[in-house]
């Protein structure tokens, strides 16, 4: 049910209209500056004016006064950023790609982020439309977590606001977030600025009838507001009501405000698809003259209005001068901050927002020496025990995914954890991998350690955008933001294969900058790597091989609650001099058997992690054996073995007395019938034959 704007003869007690005018004028002046000077002067390359959307965004921004509020928007969200306090020189400098600002010139100026310890922050936006929604839902869920589980009163009343255009309501992320917000009653506001276009695509293709508010009017658990974003009073009232509704804990709300897009999508867009009449009609709805008419003379004099306009222009000029002084970042530095970095003395160069360590978490003792205790346990038990321990000592850890609650996960790994820690900390999610990973991003930025589970490797496909954007977050914000998390994912074959449950494809994550990738072959390594990930400052893919979860060869005694294995250290499971075998996961035991069968003296290295991987150990081994065989389950072309082979051929060239070889599955999905599957997998016989062939070369 949409609220109706009440007529108001006088300016409402809030907002601070002078401030509104000031901010809108600044936004307009920046739009004009960019369009008329900076673009022609080729000082900026991506330009998105916000004319028409500015008043609504400013009004909304001025409502976000809680220190723990957060927004996440899209490329046309500069006005709200200004309202939150982003400095003009940062906005301009970022547009010009200079050092400092949002990203040190690493990202375009329209992709904003705003860390703010004392006020509302802007979660790092992404270039892809629709990606803003699920992280915002995650942030909102984190607000609830801080309030209910951590009893942090500082989060009382905080909300998350996702801004998007009318076209964004067609995206996967929008619907996934809507599901989350409404089913979990999250303190989240969906702010939809409806200008009727997604670049050139009209709104009726994004939602039937072009009005998402009307379509969602009866959506259970969602308070819907709909109005005119160009009417100062109406917009102001609706915004205030929507924000209040969410702040009061009454559940999520969606506010749609109709606004005109008074220029093209971007500077490049000539709007040839709009008729002259249409454009004229849009300009007639320009909120700025309406604002002037509304305020002058009842709230301020014409002179005051002019003064505000002049001051805004001068401020923008001043900011331009400052921004133009800013240098371009040192090009060599562009490789920094893909991952968490330390200074010379080993102290972490912490991001400004996001992660456990920002929240001054105490660091528990850790050792990389295992202290095995008791009987051997399988990987399932080992992982569960590690999660259990970390959940118990770190209240910021939360474990979630499809069926991880009462069922304990389809592989049984989380069995009993919800019972022990409650459904606020261990819970089932909706069937949306985008939602699972997206919310983890928001939670991580809010200072939690989310441990999302993707049920099977292949099901990570829908989450790819969120996975990629999470990985690059530290780099593209130049270390202002990071979202450390541990994504648990079963990989590989089991008793049978199939294209949907048996994929490995670890290389995809290695190829996504910013992700650490762990692939333990046994229970001890699983404990050590998982613990390091759960206490770390980088996002980690923790790959649990299905066939190794209960395999006899993978069982080990529990190595202790302090055992935390550093990433990037291979384990030499067997020492030998004739050939180096590099492998991981389920192939480790097969390589050992293959070496036995071939009667070869093999140096077998279990990499344990693929990002980073232990290049030094591999090259040192090849320096001794002069032959290198890589065995992995993933398909051949472009599998991670190709990377290892390239490095060995390059850096170990003068040590090689035989070609670097790979033994893998062929370039096919996993076949279902066990006989077909076994034939396609690297078998012990095939490994032995390859070893023999190489040793005889």
């Amino acid at each position, binding site marked *: 049910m949409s609220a109706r704007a009440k007529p108001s003869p006088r300016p409402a007690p809030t907002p601070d209209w002078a401030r509104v005018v000031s901010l809108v004028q600044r936004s307009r002046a920046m739009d004009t500056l960019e369009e008329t000077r900076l673009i022609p002067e080729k000082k900026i390359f991506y330009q998105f004016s916000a004319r028409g959307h500015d008043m609504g965004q400013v009004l909304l921004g001025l409502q976000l006064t809680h220190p723990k509020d957060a927004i996440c928007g899209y490329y046309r969200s500069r006005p709200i950023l200004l309202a939150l306090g982003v400095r003009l020189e940062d906005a301009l400098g970022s547009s010009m790609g200079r050092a400092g600002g949002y990203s040190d010139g690493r990202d375009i100026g329209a992709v904003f982020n705003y860390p703010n310890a004392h006020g509302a922050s802007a979660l790092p936006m992404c270039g892809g439309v629709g990606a803003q929604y699920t992280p915002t839902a995650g942030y909102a869920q984190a607000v609830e977590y801080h309030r209910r589980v951590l009893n942090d009163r500082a989060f009382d009343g905080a909300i998350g606001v996702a801004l998007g255009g009318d076209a964004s309501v067609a995206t996967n992320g929008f619907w996934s977030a809507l599901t989350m917000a409404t089913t979990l009653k999250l303190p989240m506001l969906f702010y939809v600025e409806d200008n009727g276009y997604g670049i050139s695509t009209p709104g009726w293709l994004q939602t039937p009838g072009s009005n998402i508010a009307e379509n969602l009017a009866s959506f259970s658990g969602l308070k819907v507001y709909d109005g005119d974003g160009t009417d100062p009073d109406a917009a102001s009232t609706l915004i205030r009501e929507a924000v209040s509704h969410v702040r009061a804990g009454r559940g999520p709300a969606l506010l749609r405000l109709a606004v005109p897009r008074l220029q093209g999508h971007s500077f490049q867009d000539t709007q040839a698809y709009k008729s002259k009449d249409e454009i004229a009609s849009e300009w007639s709805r320009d909120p700025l003259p309406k604002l002037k008419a509304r305020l002058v003379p009842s709230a301020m004099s014409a002179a005051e209005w002019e003064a505000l306009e002049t001051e805004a222009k001068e401020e923008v000029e001043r900011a331009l001068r400052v921004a133009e002084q800013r240098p371009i970042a040192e090009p060599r530095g562009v490789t920094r901050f893909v991952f968490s970095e330390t200074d010379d003395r080993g102290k972490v160069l912490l991001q400004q927002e996001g992660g456990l360590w920002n929240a001054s978490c105490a660091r528990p003792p850790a050792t990389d020496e295992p202290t095995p205790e008791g009987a051997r346990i399988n990987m399932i038990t080992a992982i569960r025990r590690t999660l259990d321990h970390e959940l118990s000592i770190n209240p910021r850890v939360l474990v979630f995914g499809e069926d991880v609650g009462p069922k304990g996960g389809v592989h049984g790994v989380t069995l009993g954890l919800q019972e022990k820690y409650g459904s606020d900390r261990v819970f089932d999610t909706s069937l949306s991998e985008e939602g699972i990973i997206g919310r983890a991003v928001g939670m991580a930025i809010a200072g939690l350690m989310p441990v999302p589970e993707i049920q099977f490797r292949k099901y990570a496909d829908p989450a790819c955008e969120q996975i990629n954007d999470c990985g690059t977050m530290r780099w593209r914000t130049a270390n202002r933001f990071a979202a450390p998390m541990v994504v648990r994912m079963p990989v590989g074959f089991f008793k049978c294969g199939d294209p949907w449950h048996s994929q490995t494809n670890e290389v995809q994550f290695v190829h996504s900058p910013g992700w650490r990738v762990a692939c333990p072959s046994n229970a001890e390594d699983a404990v050590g790597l998982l613990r390091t990930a759960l206490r770390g400052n980088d996002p980690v893919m923790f790959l649990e091989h299905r066939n190794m979860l209960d395999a006899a060869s993978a069982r080990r005694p529990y190595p202790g609650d302090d055992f935390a294995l550093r990433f990037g250290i291979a384990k030499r499971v067997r020492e030998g001099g004739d050939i180096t075998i590099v492998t991981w996961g389920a192939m480790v035991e097969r390589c050992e058997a293959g070496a036995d069968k071939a009667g070869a003296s093999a140096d077998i290295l279990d990499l344990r992690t693929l990002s980073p991987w232990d290049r030094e150990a591999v090259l040192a081994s090849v320096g001794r054996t002069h032959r290198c065989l890589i065995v992995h389950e993933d398909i051949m072309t472009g599998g991670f073995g190709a990377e290892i082979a390239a490095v060995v051929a390059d850096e170990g060239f003068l*040590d*090689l007395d*035989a070609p*670097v*070889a790979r033994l*893998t599955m*062929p370039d096919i999905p996993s076949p279902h019938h066990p006989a077909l599957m076994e034939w396609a997998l690297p078998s012990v016989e095939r490994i032995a034959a390859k070893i023999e062939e190489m040793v005889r070369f």
Partner: protein
Amino acid sequence: MSTIDILMPFEQEGSKSVIRAWLKKPGDAVKQDEPIVELETDKVAVEVPSPADGVLQSIALNEGDEAAPGATLGVLNTSAIPDARSETPDPGTNAKSSDPLGLGSAALRASGRDDEIEMRLSPLVKRLLSEHKLSPSEIAGSGRDGRITHTDVEAHIKRAPLGPRKIPHDPMRRSIAEHMSRSVATAPHVTAVFEADFTAIAAHRAKHKGQYEKAGAPLTYSAYIVRAAAEAMRVSPNVNARWRDDFLEVFTDVNIGMGVALGEMGLIVPVIQRAQTLSLKETAARLADLTGRARSRQLKPADVQGGTFTISNHGVSGSLLATPIIINQPQSAILGVGKLEKRVVVRDVNGADAIQVRPMAYVSLTIDHRVIDGRQTNVWLTRFVEVLESWPLED
């Protein structure tokens, strides 16, 4: 190398057997019980299995030949390392069999040149060859297709001396080098060769050596040679001379130096002073003393000074003849005595030629042709040989 004959089975159904087809060719690796050749009788076709693991070395009977029971069909080499090439499937037709998935490196799978040796060198092998300054032609390859592997290179390095041997010159080597070069540059060396019959010497020595020994003068052939040389100087005195810029200095005393080999330490030449005055016994005694002290490194400077003539007993170490023997500066000639060995010679016996076996040695005089000419050389040698050959049996 051990081999086994591949035999035709004794019991065959049917009357005669004919070789139908060889399933392996020479050079192929075979495993025990693997069929090697197919036989055909008028009743059945039979496979003959390999008696052991090895390499088929040769075929005795060809396809179409009749094979009698027990006949040797071929020979199996059981100690050969199977030619790795033959175990790699022909990539053209059989790539699938060892690589059914179509995976794996082509380099490992395919041996490209069926009958050629793999000459290409791996990066490691190239590096090792370069570091040790070796040529691939020096090294046999034991890898696939005869490829040189790094173990082949390393084995070669272990066996061979480390690089070219470099022995720094010691002072003695430098001294010898200087002396020899200078001598040859100074004196035009010419050599005349005679042969000497040592029958008379041998007879005298046999008769008297015991007594000489008791007298502290052990009789060696060298003693006779020194005496004969001293005698020869009488008839050709210029052999005992020294070239000076404006005159020839002909010495009265014949101070004969005798080369003594000192193994690794080289050569030393102690001098028998005034040899013309010494009897055989005195010569022998002097020789024994000098060579003994030479070998025990107890010579004094005076022992090696003042020589006017030198004798090189090179035949002791086997050479029949050596020329030129480099003159010991500032002397004018050097006598070389070759190996003493029994030879067949022709002698006049009662007016007729007779073949006899005599102890003979070539004796050569290398002269400085500035000082002496051919005639004086031969005169000297004639007398020298005469003294040796006519040595009286009694003292």
